[in-house]
């Protein structure tokens, strides 16, 4: 196993532990134990829990970004792209709920951890850039309304993030997949030109 692959595995393990027992109560030793590694060896991969948290963010942002980039490069309408993005997000939320958890519970609510090196959009840039490109091209093709970026970004991400959160809390009446259609429709209606 290459060092990169090992790192990825550590991150996945950390992710599930963070989701299970919270970011603060999870220690490097917990992660090492789960991985069957020595704590000393762990430090060869990540010098601190903070650096692991940061790389985890970059890693997930890039993974998400890569997926959205594929959608961006498809020769389909903005309306169809919205649906594909919602689909992608909800699928992830169901298959890897700890990922969404991590983003909502750790990143967004513990910003102080990320102040050193993850300011602003630094660690989520891969993902945000793809959303920017999606919006920009939609407006350029006159399919989406020209408006403030964050007004649109907040509407899109806040909405689907919120639903993923409700799903995790077992509040939704139906399976998350069943919301793909109406949610995409609502987003499109709010953003269309």
């Amino acid at each position: 196993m290459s060092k990169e692959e090992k790192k990825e595995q550590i991150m996945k393990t950390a992710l599930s532990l963070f989701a299970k027992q919270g970011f603060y109560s999870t220690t490097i030793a917990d992660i090492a134990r789960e991985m069957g590694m020595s704590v000393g060896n762990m430090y060869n991969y990540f010098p601190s829990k903070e650096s692991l948290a940061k790389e985890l963010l970059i890693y997930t942002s890039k993974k998400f970004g890569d997926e959205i980039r594929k959608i961006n490069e498809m020769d389909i309408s903005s309306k169809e792209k919205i649906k594909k993005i919602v689909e992608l997000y909800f699928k992830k939320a169901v298959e890897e709920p700890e990922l969404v958890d991590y983003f909502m519970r750790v990143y967004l609510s513990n910003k102080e951890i990320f102040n050193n090196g993850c300011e602003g959009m630094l660690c989520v840039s891969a993902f945000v850039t793809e959303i920017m490109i999606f919006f920009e091209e939609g407006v350029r093709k006159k399919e989406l309304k020209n408006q403030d970026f964050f007004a649109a970004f907040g509407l899109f991400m806040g909405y689907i993030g919120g639903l993923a959160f409700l799903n995790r809390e077992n509040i939704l009446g139906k399976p998350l997949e069943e919301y793909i259609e109406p949610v995409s429709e609502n987003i499109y209606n709010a953003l269309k030109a």
Partner: protein
Amino acid sequence: MRLKPKIIWIDGVGCNGCSHSFFNYPEISSFFENFELLYHPLLDSDEFNVQNCDILIIEGALKSNFSRLGKDLNSLISELFLKAKKIIALGTCAVYGGIFGKGLVFDKNEKGKFYKCRDRVINIPGCPSHPEWIMYVLNMIKNDKKIALDEFNRPVEIFSYTSHMGCTRNEYFEWKIDAQDFGSKEGCLFYYQGCQGPFTHSSCNKILWNEVNSKPRAGTPCFGCTEVSFPKKDLFKTETFMGIPANIPLGVSKRAYLTISGIAKSLTNERLTKKLIECENEDKQKDN
């Protein structure tokens, strides 16, 4: 070329601004020493005659039913084209049409009336064109040097630069610190004020205007006056799609530009977020 190339300088539909800009060339006496001016629209010369010349300079656009020197402008230019070895289309009007009409080789993005003769034409756009650009081209012709041209027949030595290169606001561009309004030496004019510097071909900020300044240095956005789109609509506004500039710096992909901009915006250059010079009013100084 001959010892003293003969020049005929004609004005089409324009404002004579390229002539007046040329008059600012600091070493202008060398122009009179090295070239023979058969006709010029402003400077004293012999009576106008359609005659052979080495270099025909046309400033201003073409337009139908426009009279010049007692002839129809378009046919006058056609006659002169036959008599000239080289033709310089001077200024954005002559190059693309600009505000007033049609260009010689190009009519905006279409082929112009003299497209077929483009091998003999050198385009020097700009509203106005810079005096040093004109002298550069004239000297190259006189010295039989080959002028490399880009796809718009513009000399590469001038138009491979962007007007962004050398701008005093470049640090603000790097760190994505935008001028919020007019009238400050701080901030980049690219995001709100409509500056077209990063995607406009010209050497304005390299050689400067009148040897001392440039529009962006003086707080005015670059209006892209060397490009075919000049003058675009909403010249003091940056066109954005969902907050993202519709035109991005030349040579970079949108993805790469957005990535680097996002990163720059996320970081802070403390020094550049403040006024460069804190000003104290004179009254206040007296009170102290």
